[in-house]
């Protein structure tokens, strides 16, 4: 009888460990928890071009992650991309003239939004719109401009 109880306990531990592993994979490894902890205040910004920015991309100030991109939409009135971000409520002292830019981490890395705090007295709050934005650098455009300027240089010297 003792033996059966031991076996049953061990099986119980095994099954619990299996589900705990699955739970850990779901919460810690995958993006599932990103939907559960979207607490914080939302601000949005309009960009000409968001490049490869995706939902759940990080939002950071001075390299410190303070939130995530929660949704990306296209505004047909202004023909701009509207990016909504959720900011961790403990970072509630960002000035209203904070500017948002889209950067790339590393040469080929992921794209993220970087905030540059301004000097206003008032702070960003739920529903605010960041007006100072800088779009993503699109590699093809830069290379295109570079080639174009090179070509025009070449034709001048001739």
């Amino acid at each position, binding site marked *: 009888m003792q033996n059966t109880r031991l076996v049953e306990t061990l*099986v119980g531990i*095994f099954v619990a*460990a*299996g589900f705990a592993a699955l739970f*850990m994979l779901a919460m810690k490894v995958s993006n599932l928890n990103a939907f559960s902890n979207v607490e914080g205040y939302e601000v949005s910004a309009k960009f000409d071009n968001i490049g490869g920015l995706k939902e759940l991309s990080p939002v950071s100030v001075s390299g410190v992650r303070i939130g995530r991109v929660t949704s990306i939409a296209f505004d047909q009135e202004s023909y701009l991309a509207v990016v909504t971000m959720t900011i961790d409520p403990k970072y509630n002292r960002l000035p209203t003239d904070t500017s948002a830019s889209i950067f790339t981490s590393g*040469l*080929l890395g992921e794209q993220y939004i970087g905030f540059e705090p301004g000097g206003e007295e008032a702070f960003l709050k739920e529903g605010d719109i960041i007006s100072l934005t800088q779009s993503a650098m699109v590699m093809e455009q830069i290379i295109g401009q570079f080639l174009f300027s090179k070509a025009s240089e070449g034709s001048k010297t001739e």
Partner: protein
Amino acid sequence: MNSLQQLGHGALTAFQRLGRAHLFLFAILAGLPSLLLRLRLLIQQIFSVGVLSLVITVVAGLFVGMVLGLQGYNTLVDFGAEDSLGVMVALSLVRELGPVVAALLFAGRAGSALTAEIGLMKATEQLSGMEMMAVDPLKRVIAPRFLAGVLSLPLLAAIFSAVGVMGGYFVGVGLLGVDEGAFWSQMQSRVDFDEDIMNGVIKSIVFGVVVTWIAVFEGYDAVPTSAGVSRATTRTVVYASLAVLGLDFVLTALMFGEI
């Protein structure tokens, strides 16, 4: 003429075995509902099939994750992309290595034991003895083992992946100095729950059915001699491993491929 006849005989034997295996599977499936009345049998089998495979799975998962972390780092650091190490480790584990390596270990550790046990029961005429006592060996012996294998492998594969991610974390973040935040955040932003983790779980369920099915069938169909049981055990490991690797390609192509 003689060799042609041999070829035909071989083919017919193979198809007969395949047919028997399928009839056997249906008989097991028919025996599963009555198993609900005898949960103790199932728990006993989950113990011997799943719990006893736990140690090898955890150790193997840890080392596979650590090697992935090491090798991935060496390649990624050349491109300055070592922050993506977590993504690489997690995706390789949950999509491929978790289900596949756990299934291979399971075939070697639990599958062979199942075949040997059932084969020996047949060789020592315990199965016929049960039939004499009007106990259906399919329901009493085979069905609990089959269901235990099918239930255990997905759990083992999940444990393997989770431990592997921790192994990759120890090597990548602990030893090689990858940024901890980047390791987890990039992993979380790239690994999708439905696309990656659930597909891995589906894979391991399929592997669980196939490996356990092969194991119990080989045991039940073994020639009831000591040499027959040993051949059946070898066949279980070989066939189950090949079936897992082959099916993995098919499942990967269906789930992640463009085919």
